[in-house]
């Protein structure tokens, strides 16, 4: 009997468990998944919770229900990985051996890393929406917010779903308009980047979207601390941004066991070969999803596209062959901009987001880098696709590799 061990039962881990269990012979292979959480979250849905559009029931399912019966789920936390010994030790002291290991422990929030973030205003006037509890608390606070400065800020790169804060301010604009108090609210978007986004062509589009909504961008702002008493953000170069209500994306870090096992970078993300997702020193260890330090977005779509490639490659590798396919960094994100519309970007390691149509060249139905109603329906449909196809590891009619078909090359 050989063992495939998967750490984490989030988007990436569940998807791989489902895919592999479907094709591997159960007499030869045992698949084990480790995750302490009993709930699986549809994280993209957290965005809609502060505005009362989604509630808890829309974004949760029991972890167990999303995994195949033949897979053993161990509800515990990984304490340490000993890659040289092919061994994982759990918090309860139990140790697990593996032939192949898939690390899919994602990214977690580390608000403790920013001075003043967990101060007296935390959960009173300072919120985050990257966890379900945080998003629900923010929904309550927004209901009672009747005017003033709303500041959305980002502590550092990289963070998961890099467009979510942009979507948040656009939806906030909508929300206050509907409540008839938009003229009483100033909205600020404060980022450590030099603009709304890193890739120039998409940045232009997003800057325009924000300008049209009267959202002020404050760029190159790297938060040093949060002054709770005077309600302001202070940067390393001593600039200040006052706020009445602050929504923040705290520092994102990989799981703590990564640090303890000395396999990660300074943020506990794990460097891997960007095409095969293999750890260079340990070719039987793969890192999928947000846990990996690769130069593309931390997004469910990336976990999905990379997972398709990894699945093919693992089937080759266990037969003693070389990995067959290369992941190209393909990422694909719907961007809600409010007013019932959304944009869509599609890019990879080498090609920045370009205008055009997706997934079918010339037809769409989705429009890249454009703001349309149908893109918005795409975003909403994604929840259904997520639960029934993506996490279940079922094939979707889109290519894992990015395609230039349907894209217009512009500069």
């Amino acid at each position, binding site marked *: 009997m050989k063992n495939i061990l998967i750490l984490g039962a989030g988007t990436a881990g569940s998807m791989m468990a489902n895919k592999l269990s479907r094709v591997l012979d159960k007499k030869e292979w045992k698949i084990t998944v480790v995750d302490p959480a009993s709930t699986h979250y549809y994280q993209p849905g957290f965005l809609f919770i502060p505005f009362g559009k989604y509630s808890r029931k829309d974004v949760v399912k029991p972890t167990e229900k999303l995994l195949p019966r033949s897979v053993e789920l161990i509800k515990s936390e990984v304490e340490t990985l000993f890659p040289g010994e092919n061994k994982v030790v759990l918090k309860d002291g139990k140790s697990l051996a593996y032939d192949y290991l898939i690390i899919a422990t994602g990214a977690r929030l580390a608000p403790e890393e920013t001075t003043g973030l967990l101060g007296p205003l935390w959960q009173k006037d300072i919120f985050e929406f990257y966890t379900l509890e945080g998003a629900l608390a923010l929904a309550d606070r927004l209901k009672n917010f009747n005017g003033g400065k709303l500041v959305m800020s980002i502590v*550092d790169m*990289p963070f998961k779903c890099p467009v979510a804060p942009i979507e948040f301010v656009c939806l906030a604009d909508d929300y206050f308009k509907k409540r008839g108090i938009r003229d009483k609210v100033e909205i600020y978007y404060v980022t450590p980047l030099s603009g709304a986004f*890193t*890739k120039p062509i998409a940045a232009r589009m997003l800057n325009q979207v924000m300008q049209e909504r009267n959202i002020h961008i404050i760029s190159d702002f790297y938060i*040093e601390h949060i002054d709770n008493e005077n309600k302001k953000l202070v940067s*390393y170069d001593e600039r200040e941004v006052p706020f009445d209500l602050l929504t923040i994306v705290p520092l994102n870090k990989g799981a703590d066991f990564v640090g303890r096992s000395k396999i990660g*970078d300074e943020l506990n993300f794990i460097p891997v070969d960007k095409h095969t997702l293999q750890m260079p020193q340990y070719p039987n260890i793969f890192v999928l999803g947000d846990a990996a330090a*690769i130069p*593309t*977005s931390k997004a469910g779509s990336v976990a999905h596209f990379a997972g398709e490639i990894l699945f093919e490659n693992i089937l080759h590798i266990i037969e003693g062959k070389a990995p067959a396919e290369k992941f190209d960094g393909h990422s694909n994100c719907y961007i809600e901009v409010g007013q019932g519309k959304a944009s869509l970007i599609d890019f990879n390691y080498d090609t920045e987001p370009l205008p055009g149509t997706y997934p079918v060249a010339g037809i769409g139905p989705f429009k890249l880098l454009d703001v349309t109603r149908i893109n918005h329906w795409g975003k909403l449909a994604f929840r259904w696709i997520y639960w029934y196809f993506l996490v279940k590891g079922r094939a979707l009619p889109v290519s894992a590799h990015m395609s230039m078909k349907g894209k217009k090359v512009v500069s």
Partner: protein
Amino acid sequence: MAEKIVAGRTIQVNEEGYMTNPSEWTREIAAELAKEEGITLTDKHYAVLEFIREKALAGETLTIRKIGTSGIVDMKEFYQLFPGGPLKLASKLAGIPKPTSCV
């Protein structure tokens, strides 16, 4: 792309003034480029520049936090040494491409 003569040597730079061939870099070039930015390089500056070059040439993505946890400087000092956009400025003086965030 353009050529520029700095500290008596010809270097290749892009339209924003970043060197495009890291192997053309010398400490003297860094000193001169720093002067253009109004900075006089100290040993501490050089220690940061060398750390950045080592990491960048090994293919690692650099962040302000990575430099702030390098043990050479903390983030506050990094901002003081290279005011404004410290990572961009330090990369320019270290002769490596402008850092891009991968999104």
